[in-house]
Each structure stands twice: as C-alpha cells, then as structure tokens.
C-alpha cells in the first residue's frame, strides 16, 4: 500500500484541472476499503493504482450521513451503497463547490414545514371525525346491530356487574310482584316489548342502570332513598329510555371509535396518557350528556302518558346527589347537573290525572323487597 503515495496521482490531477486528492472508496459490492485519488475532470474520476474505478458525474453526487469532519458522498448512477469518504477539508470543499445537487436528498426547513402542515391537517381531520363522524356512525350503525348481539353484550356486562357488586338478587314474592307491576305499567305506556328484564340488586349504592339487550338493574340503595312509587317509576322510565334508544350499543361504538382515534392522534408522546384521558372524557361526556337528556325526555313522556308527574324523579335524584354545580366542572360531567334536571322535571310538573301506580301496600312491599322474611 505504501507504494501508493509515491504514485503520480496528485500531480496528474493538478496538471489536468488544478485540484485532486485522496479519499477512501467503497464500491458498494464489497467491504474492501480502497485508498483512491480523486481527479476533478468534467466528471469525478476515482482512481486506484492509475486504474479508474468509477467516474461520477457531479450532478448525480449526493451527500450521505457522516461523522463530523468527514464528507461522505454517494452517486445515483453507482450501486446504492457505494461510498466515497473525504477527510481533507480542502478536497471536500472543492467537491462541494462542483456538486450542485449535493443536498437534494436531505430534508430541509421546507420538509419540516410540510410535516407540520400535514400533521395539522391530520389532526383537524381526526378531530372532525371524532366530533361529527363517530356520532353519526354510531347512530347509523346501532340499528344495524342485531338484537341477539346486543343480548350477548348484555350477558357479558351482566357477568361483570354480578362479580363487581356481589350479585345478590332481591326477589321476595310481594316485593317482586309490586316491582313487576310498576315495570309493566311503564313499559306498556312507553310501547316497549315484554322481553325486558328488570331486577333489584342488593347494594347500598343508590343507583340504577340499563344494560344492552334489555336488562334494567335497580340497586336496593335507591329504593331505600325513595319516598314514593312515582320517584322509582321515573327512574325506571329513564333507564327504559336508554334501552329504547339502544344507548348502550351506541355508546360502545362511540367510545370504541373515539378512544381509538384519540389514541391515534396523540400517538407516542411519552406521558401523553393524561392528555388522552382528559380529551376523551371531555368529548364522551358531552355525548353521554345528550343521551341522558334524551332518556329524561323519554321518562317525562312516559310519566305523562301514565298521568303522573315526572317531578318526583328529579326530587329523588336531587336527594341522592345533592347540588352538583359546586363540585364539578359541568363540561366534564357525564350527566346533566342534577339541579338542572330537577328544574326541567319541575317545569313538566302536572297534577296527577291517572291512578297511583302502586297502592300503599304494594309500595311498602317494594321497599322491603330485600328483606328475607317475605311476611310484612
């Protein structure tokens, strides 16, 4: 190899075009490291032992990544991995001055601006889909989901509910008779089919909910807080409203869609979990408030149909939650604020025109539905 430096290469080069120099060359087909001389003629000639290995036209030469202090270039016409490495600053400067399109492949400022622009466009489109597309899709898809599938969803959820809440069913005979009478009255008034099942579960939590596929659960804690049959009837009507509107299935589609899209949006910023959670709860909350409002409308209509006032329902809810406005941000709440719901029910208050839904005795049996001795 030492023969090489006594070669006539540099002299030749300076004679022909005034510049030349040494470089390291890899031809892209083997890992052999060649010390070569460069000759800046009308093309860049790469010479080893006076044998020209390659001639690259300056317009085809592109920069490749290199450590600082080294210029590494490749050529479009050469094998993809052919590399020429120049460590001499003067030679590097000479080559750079001749190659007009050296940095064509390197993404520059405009490239970054384009990435930012496209990302913003993608963000806007995802947000638009979340706000308008997903609710629409949920509305359109829900009627297409077969009842049998909904029932399965309900079965799954039921299994989990029973695991979470202990699953003790309250059904002593007089209490169950009163409960069935109440449910049937509302169901017939609302025009729902008789496949709906409703159950009282023993739990101190004052709540009630509906599962997809036609299951309504009332916790005994709610019955304990109720003062009369109309209060419970209103709540039941509200839950039947959810069933009638198939809100469970719609929510499932909606939540699945938004979670997926928002996760996609925020991707990989470490620590973005909190952000995803926050924006998701904001958006789904507004959607679920709307569903709750609709279920309330349904309950109001059902109670009017029975000739009873919806106001007791609002009173029961207010008794359970208290005034909510002080405690939470209203845009984060999944339900409308209880005081607003009570105000709405009060506006719809009418003097009763129909018979009481339960007799005093039946009401007492319903209150005692969880007591094990069925004699009152």
């Amino acid at each position, binding site marked *: 190899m030492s023969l090489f430096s006594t070669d006539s290469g540099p002299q030749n080069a300076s004679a022909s075009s005034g510049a030349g120099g040494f470089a390291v060359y890899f031809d892209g087909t083997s890992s052999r490291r060649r010390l070569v001389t460069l000759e800046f003629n009308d093309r860049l000639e790469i010479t080893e032992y006076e044998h020209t290995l390659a001639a690259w036209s300056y317009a085809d030469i592109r920069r490749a990544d*290199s450590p600082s202090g080294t210029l590494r270039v490749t050529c479009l016409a050469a094998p993809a991995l052919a*590399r020429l490495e120049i460590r001499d600053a003067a030679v590097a400067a000479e080559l750079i001055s001749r190659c007009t399109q050296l940095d064509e492949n390197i993404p520059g400022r405009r490239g970054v601006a384009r990435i930012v622009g496209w*990302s913003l466009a993608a963000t806007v489109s995802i947000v638009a889909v979340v706000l308008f597309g997903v609710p629409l899709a949920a509305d359109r898809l829900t009627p297409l989901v077969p009842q049998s599938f909904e029932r399965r969803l309900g079965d799954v959820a039921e299994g989990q509910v029973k695991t979470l809440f202990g699953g003790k069913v309250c059904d002593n005979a007089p209490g169950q008779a009163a409960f069935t009478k109440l449910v049937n009255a509302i169901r017939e008034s609302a025009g729902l089919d008789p496949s709906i099942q409703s159950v009282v579960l023993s739990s101190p939590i004052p709540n009630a909910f509906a599962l997809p596929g036609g299951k309504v659960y009332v916790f005994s804690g709610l019955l304990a807080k109720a003062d009369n049959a109309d209060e419970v009837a209103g709540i039941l009507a509200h839950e039947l409203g959810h069933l009638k509107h198939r809100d469970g299935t719609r929510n499932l589609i909606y939540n699945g869609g938004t979670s997926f899209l928002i996760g996609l949006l*925020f*991707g*990989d910023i*470490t620590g973005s979990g909190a952000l995803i959670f926050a924006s998701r709860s904001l958006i789904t909350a507004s959607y679920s408030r709307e569903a709750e409002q609709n279920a309330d409308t349904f309950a109001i209509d059902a109670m009017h149909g029975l000739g009873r006032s919806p106001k007791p329902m609002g009173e029961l809810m207010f008794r359970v939650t208290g005034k909510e406005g002080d405690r939470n*941000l209203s845009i984060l709440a999944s339900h409308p604020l209880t005081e607003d719901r009570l105000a709405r029910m009060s506006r719809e208050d009418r003097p009763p025109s129909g018979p009481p839904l339960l007799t005093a005795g039946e009401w007492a049996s319903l209150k005692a539905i969880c007591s094990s001795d069925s004699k009152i």
Partner: protein
Amino acid sequence: MNQISLVPRHPPPLPVSFSGDRGEFFRLVARGAGLELITVGFYRFWLATDIRRHLWSNTHIDGDAAEYTGRARELLIGFLIALAIIVPVYLAYFLAGLEAERYKAFASFPLLAFFYLFGQFAIYRARRYRLTRTVWRGVRFWMSGSGWAYAAQAALWGLLMILTLGLILPWRAAALERYKMRHSYYGDLQGGFEGRAWEFFKRGWWLWLLAPIAFYVFPLAPFVYGAFKAVEWRWWLSGIRFGGVRLESTMRRGALIGLYWKVIGWIVVLAVVFVAYLALCAVLVASMSGAAFNQFFAPQVFSRSVPLLILAGLGYLGFALAINVVMRVYLLRDLWVRVLASMTVHHIEAAANVSARGELANALGEGFADGLDVAGF
C-alpha cells in the same frame, strides 16, 4: 497538497469509538420534542430516524463510521399499513373477548397472550428493518428467519419465565439471541451468538434475589436495575460473532448506575419546577380573577377555573417533553457511548473483503412495534 498524506493508514488503537457531539444530540432531541408536540406526535418517525442517523454515523469501527440509511417516510408508511392490519385484528379480538366473557366473567385475559405473541413478532421484524438499514464500509447488514417462529419461541420461553419467576431469564435470552444472530448477516458473513446462559446466570443471580427487595425499597432499584443492564450488555456483546469477527465487552457492573441516578435527579428537579410553575399560575390567576385569596383557594372554585386548567395542561406538556429529552440524552445517547466505550473488536480483518448481499426489509415491523407500544430504539 502535501497535507493529503494525513489519510490514516492504520486503524486507531481503539477499534470502536464514538465521535458525536453531546450538545448537537441535545439540540436534536430538544427540537424533536418540540416538533413532536406541534405535530401531536406524528414527528416521532422523523425524530427516531434522526436519532439513529446521529448515533450510527458517529460510531467508528476500525476507523470507519457506520451509516443508517433508513428514512422516516418508510416508518410512516409502515405505521399506516400496520394500522390497517391492527384495526381488524383489534376488532376480532374484541368479538372473541366478548364470547369468552359471556362464558365466564373476565375470562378474556388469556387473549392477551395473543398480543404478546404479536408484540414479539413486531420486535423481530423491527430489528430486521433496522439491521437492513445499517451500513458499514458500503455493505449492509441483513436478516433472514421468520418473525412468527421467533414469536413462538419467545412466547414459550415467556411461559417458562412465569413458571420459574424469572430465574430462567439467562437461558431465554441465550436461546432467543442465538436465533436472532444465526439469522443475521453482514454481507456474506453469517452472524452467530456464543454467549452461554450459565455465564449470564453466574454474573447476575444475586440481582434476581435483590429484585423483590428493590421493588419495595425504592433507592435500591436504580442500583439493581443498572447493575442488571450492565451485566446483560456485557454478556450480550461478548457473545456476538460475525464469521471470524468477535466482539468483546469489559463493562463493569456499576458502569450504568450513574446514568439512572442522573435521570432520577433530573426528573425530581423538573417536578419541582413544575410544581413551582403550578403555584405561580394559581397565584397569578387568583390575583387576576379579583376574588379574595382564601375564597379562590377553596377547593371547589379552585378546580373549576378554566384558565388555570389550561395553564396546568400546558405546563404538564412541557414537563412531559422535558422528561422525554432527559431520557433520550441519558438513556439513549450516553448509554450508547458507555456501551461502545466498553467494546473491542477482535479479528476485524475477517470483515475486510465481504461481498454485499441481502435485501432491504420493509418497515411494517416497526409500524407494528409502534402500534403495539413495544418499540425499541
């Protein structure tokens, strides 16, 4: 033209060295973190590519620097295709889970095993992508083998890991590494892995005993984890072969512990700054709102102030990004430098005249790894 004879004739005494500037890397990741925020995360493909380009092209082996030829556009396309595949898989997973739940509540957990398998597949294919984008002396590395075969092996070993409470880890690592390295090539030079599980076990068994204690005694954890990573790196590097080329690492057990403490220290500092910022915002918003101070700081009013929530959200973002930068500087760049510093290469002359071989692999694996959150570098 006399100075031209500066071209080095002999490899420098240290066969592996790193020439990257730390300040440059910091600017790279800091700018990248900012752009990631503006682009709500989409910039991650470009940032990951730039980080790899920096690390690869400043790593010199036998005097010649490596090169990373992957491009962010490939990662983006890989991610989009992976998404198109993962979405139906998630749907199928959801339906299958539904059936399982109907049979018995919470019975769908075994289906997570499927995603473990999928994740391992992604890890293999992502490694393949990175390897085929790694070039040294004008010849690329490449990889054969099957991602699913690897995933099956990894899953079976994973099962044994659970059964033995992790004690079998060295044997798992050795078996999986043998598979990966046997299918790795540099040109026509086939890779191999000669690390013996028993050696790994002998150097690290006491860490296995300390791990449960470190789980409860927090200050012990960085020591145990740092020592484990050092032992693992040393054992892994020392086992790697490419034809006649042999790597060796002399990393000490304590070599990485400092890095983890520095990261923890920075996180504490950043957390203090974040809390101070929150306090400042609260005071500022309170004085602007005009309400009496003690009235404003009553918890109900406090948590309902929208400007305060927005300021807190912005602060949180800055906090998260700063942690991101710290992690990348210490746990990517500094770790990389320390690992390289511990490394020597023997019989590099075996790689002096290797013929180029191997096809480029697509970035689908990287896309899966991104979608399933199992990404490495």
